[in-house]
């Protein structure tokens, strides 16, 4: 790990001292893990703690009881930290307003998940975080999304550790019936995904919950919860290559499609080679962005984008 900058180091010490005092004896390894530093760094930090102390005349006449001290034998022989003398910093400091704001925002999101924290727990924690901050934190709120039967049942399956079955419809393909050992619900940018082991595909898969219907609990205990899980937008083995073009500043709107894409930029225009499981579904992206994201290849996908818009316009009495 790289050298720590001064503010981070100071913050760390202000928390490390109360942490060590509270626990009495802690192994170097455990403390290193809790503070996300290497064991060597933790050891060196604890050793340096002994140069911290009360004001004095000069180094040789400073009284030993006015400095932090540790149990050196315990550290040298057993790699265990114990503070034997403290001269302040005994209590955890208040949270900074930023720390409180980050936790409050996260808490608002976490509490919107079914069964994680009730209204009373949420209100109690919000009050404690605000009161425990050095100054009033910026309010960061998350408007809770409506929780429907699908989300509730998926959460239930996770808690009960049983498989669930449902109908899954990917856009532009036939619905399939899936039985899935649920592993995790991922909530990102307002979208809920179920990660789990699919009995049909015999592999870990991600399912967008909005495409799930008719869910039911099966009563089959989960058996494949520990296999490696693919990333949310990881390319699959049988992906197609598609080429799209858009103005550079639109890249954020193309979003997750660009993970793993090869892009080239010239004259303010980005051309990206994407990996997608079905290139024809790019017609949806093209329509969403009013053609400002243009599908170039394959030709079938480009045609599909034109047809998609034309068919929709026909609903409004416009023929092409």
């Amino acid at each position, binding site marked *: 790990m790289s050298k720590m900058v001064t503010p981070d180091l100071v913050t760390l010490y202000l928390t490390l001292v109360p942490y060590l005092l509270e626990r009495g004896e802690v192994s170097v390894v455990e403390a290193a893990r809790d*503070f996300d530093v290497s064991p060597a760094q933790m050891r060196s930090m604890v050793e340096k703690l002994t140069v911290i102390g009360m004001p*004095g005349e000069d180094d040789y006449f400073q009284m030993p009881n006015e400095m932090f001290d540790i149990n050196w034998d315990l550290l040298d022989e057993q790699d265990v930290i114990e503070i034997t003398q403290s001269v302040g910093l005994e209590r955890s*400091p208040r949270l900074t307003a930023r720390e409180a704001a980050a936790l409050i925002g996260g808490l608002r999101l976490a509490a919107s998940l079914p069964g994680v924290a009730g209204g009373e727990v949420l209100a109690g924690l919000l009050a404690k975080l605000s009161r425990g901050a050095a100054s009033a934190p*910026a309010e960061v709120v998350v408007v809770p999304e409506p929780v429907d039967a699908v989300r509730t049942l998926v959460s239930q399956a996770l808690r009960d550790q049983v498989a669930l079955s449902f109908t899954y419809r990917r856009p532009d393909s036939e619905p399939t019936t899936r039985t899935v050992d649920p592993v995790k619900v991922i909530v990102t940018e307002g979208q809920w995904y179920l990660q789990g082991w699919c009995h049909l595909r015999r592999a870990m898969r991600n399912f967008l919950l909005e495409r799930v*219907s008719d869910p039911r609990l099966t009563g089959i205990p989960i058996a494949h919860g520990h296999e490696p899980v693919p990333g949310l937008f990881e390319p699959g083995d049988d992906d197609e290559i598609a080429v799209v073009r858009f103005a550079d500043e639109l890249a954020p709107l193309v979003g997750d499609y660009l993970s793993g894409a090869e892009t080239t930029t010239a004259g303010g225009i980005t051309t990206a080679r994407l990996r997608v499981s079905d290139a024809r579904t790019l017609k949806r992206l093209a329509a969403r962005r009013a*053609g400002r994201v243009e599908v170039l290849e394959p030709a079938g996908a480009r045609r599909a984008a034109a047809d998609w818009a034309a068919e929709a316009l026909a609903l*409004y009495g416009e023929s092409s």
Partner: protein
Amino acid sequence: MAERIQAGERQLNLIVALMATEIGLTKQQILESVSGYRQRNEGRSDALEKMFERDKDDLRDLGVPIETIGDSADPNDLREARYRIPKAEYDLPADISFTPAEVAVLALAGSVWSEGSLSKDATTGLRKIRALGIEVDEPIIGFAPRMTVREPSFAPLRDAIEACRVVAFDYLKPGEETPRRRTVRPLALVDYEGRWHVAAHDVDADGHRMFLLSRIVGDVLPTRKGFDPELRVGAGERAMQSLREVAERNRALLEVTPGSEAALRLARRGTPAVQGIHVPFVDLHIFADELASYGPEVRVVEPPALREAVIERLRSALAVHTEAGGAA
């Protein structure tokens, strides 16, 4: 041993010294006695004084409450000022405690940020709470909520809210050619359907407004003006309420192909109508983007403005993709 005391250790010595004093220490006393200063305290003291001023600012940035006790006759005269850290303002209040279940919820809350500095803030905050020595329940597994912040305006707006500072930014409304400068009192940051907004009081329009962070162009500029912190009280709750009211007013009537992607994704948000479904929305342009993506799976019956916006997008998409050049 102490000939090369690093900045971090010097600042920690300063904290220990200022917490141990009730009446406070003068700058002179600090430079002469606190380890890290006293070893360099010979000859000209300008550099050392500057170092002390910097340390003081750094520590205040970390939330350490350094109090300045000035001359009561002349508060601007800081030559004889005394400095201290009141324990009551430094310590996490003694009556705040957390149950093991609460710490488990906070651990989940602390894990949601994918952006570096917010994630770091959450982690250091959580560590302070954990240092209280609370037993922790089993971690909450099975849920991985994630919060993404792509907009560079998020951090400066958060800081402006915290400092009750009026800010200005250029804001580009969809359909307008050029961005317009807005001057606002920012009150709360609001995530709605995965998009960040700032709830603010627009100074020129003299009214409450919601601004989408993704439509802020360029930098958020702090001004010299502050505002009354009272304005912030309950702002998050009020913003959520007003978003709900806007959504209720902006109800679209849609006809949707059963079993399609559109039907699946709109059903959860909508209520069945005699012919089609009613779906509330907050921002016409964002909703039109979504509806356009569904192509022929959805037809907008009303309102007319939404219908026009969707048709507009479809026409452009069609035009772009029927031009030659696809084989480029």
